[in-house]
């Protein structure tokens, strides 16, 4: 019954069937425009969701395929240049112990920051003292303070 009513409304509304003259609309007209109108807008945009999602998946798959292909090609090529260029893989093992190095240098970093703050203090005549340095947690967990500040600055104009 509902479907029949909707079909009737659609056929009634097709091709500018409501005149724009100065007369009040009857109930079937305004109900028809409201619900069929909203339905058509939803339908058009749902269709767009489907098409755009399919395109998105397609491109993701294509990207994945291309990356695989590149990795495969690189793997195939790898043995040959390795004879000539033995050095490039060397930096990789160096990068691994980096976090440990940062931890070791923590005191140095704090000293550098303290020196920077002391310089700032010299400029405006105030003496600063650093009482504690705590690891970031809570609200900014998972994101560095610099990254948070960068985002805040980017969003601020909006």
């Amino acid at each position, binding site marked *: 019954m509902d479907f029949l009513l909707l079909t009737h409304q659609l056929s009634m509304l097709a091709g500018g069937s409501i005149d*724009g003259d*100065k007369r009040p609309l009857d109930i079937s007209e305004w109900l028809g*425009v409201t619900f069929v109108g909203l339905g058509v807008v939803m339908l058009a945009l749902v269709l767009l969701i489907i098409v755009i999602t399919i395109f998105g998946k397609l491109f993701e798959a294509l990207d994945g395929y291309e990356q695989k292909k590149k990795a495969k090609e690189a793997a195939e090529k790898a043995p040959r240049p390795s004879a000539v260029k033995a050095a490039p893989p060397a930096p990789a093992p160096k990068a691994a112990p980096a976090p440990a190095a940062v931890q070791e240098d923590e005191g140095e970093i704090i000293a550098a920051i303290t020196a920077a703050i002391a310089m700032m203090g010299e400029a405006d005549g105030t003496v600063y003292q650093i009482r504690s340095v705590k690891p970031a947690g809570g609200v900014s967990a998972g994101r560095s303070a610099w990254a948070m500040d960068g985002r805040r600055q980017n969003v601020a104009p909006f």
Partner: protein
Amino acid sequence: MEILQSILGGLWETSGLYGLTQDWHCLIMIGISFLFMYFAIVRGWEPLLLLPISFGMFLANLPVVNLEDAIFHASFWNEPQTVDWFWKVLHDGGLLDKLYLGVKLQIYPCLIFLGIGTMTDFGPLIANPKSFLLGAAAQGGIFFTFLIAASVLHMSAAECGSIAIIGGADGPTSIYVSSKLLDGANSNLNTGTIALAAYTYMALVPIIQPPLMRLFTTKKERAIKMAQLRTPSKTEKIIFPIVVTLIVALMVPSAASLVGMLMFGNLLKESGACDRLVDTAQNALMNIVTIFLGISVGATTTWSNVGNWDFIKVLALGAAAFSLGTISGLLLAKLMNWLSGGKLNPLIGSAGVSAVPMAARQSQKVGAETDPTNFLLMHAMGPNVAGVIGSAVAAGVLLSVIAY
């Protein structure tokens, strides 16, 4: 002596001061135009539009006795618009009458959409296509306002459609629909008053939306952090405008001019091959059209058009349309949040009304009020730009249903 008297008398009778003694209502409109100028210059409310609109209002309301001297003839636009009528406007019209033809012939709204297209990044929408649903839901403001205008206020189809489209929160779309539906003979309303209401409410988005957003969402919902969006490839961004134009034009051909120009602008931008055209469309062309549109729309707000109950009705229904659009978007976003298991912040639903980027800005602002580390701006841009497409489709639906 008599000659001198007759010359002076003639001068007096053709002066604006004499016109003022005949009809003083124009003083009210000039006062309102000063108020709008104050809002634009001192308060900085949408000055790029409000200042041309207010000065157009000022020019059109200056008192004249001889109609030939008028810069704008409100009476012309209340006549049935036949082919002869267009000749009459070109022959007898003032400067602003001729500029207003660009509104009446729907040239300016489409050119503005071209400029908007070159400035819009559909990336967030491509990355999260479900945003289209929120852009569609917010168009509920248009259709529910149509229902109120028709059922409670017993307005005609052309009036209901022209007022309801204000809920799309999109100035060019409102002008496009109302200039097609209202032909001067079928209503006391005109495109100028619809445009004025639409742009006023767009400027008031920061006042209208946040209370509704807080009312319809819980603190817990407002604090939801959404997963980061993927970055779409260049190819996807190039294909997007073509696909959208194709689908919208196939489903609702009457929306093709608006959506087509929007997507053409976007294709120019995303192609990366037409930098000169993009530069012209988003700067020089956009600015020129904004000046013409603003000053000529402002000119239509003469006392005869604005000083009546119909304009009050437009303002009241316009506010209802904006609020209903915001609420519809929020409610669907709440439903989507529930269905997704709490992964979608409902605040981005209100951005489905297409006031870009003001509505997305409100989602960001209200979200950050609850949790300053929550960044909703990019998530809200998806529904926001979907709202532009949604309101253009809704405009197409209204135009295909109501004969004009």
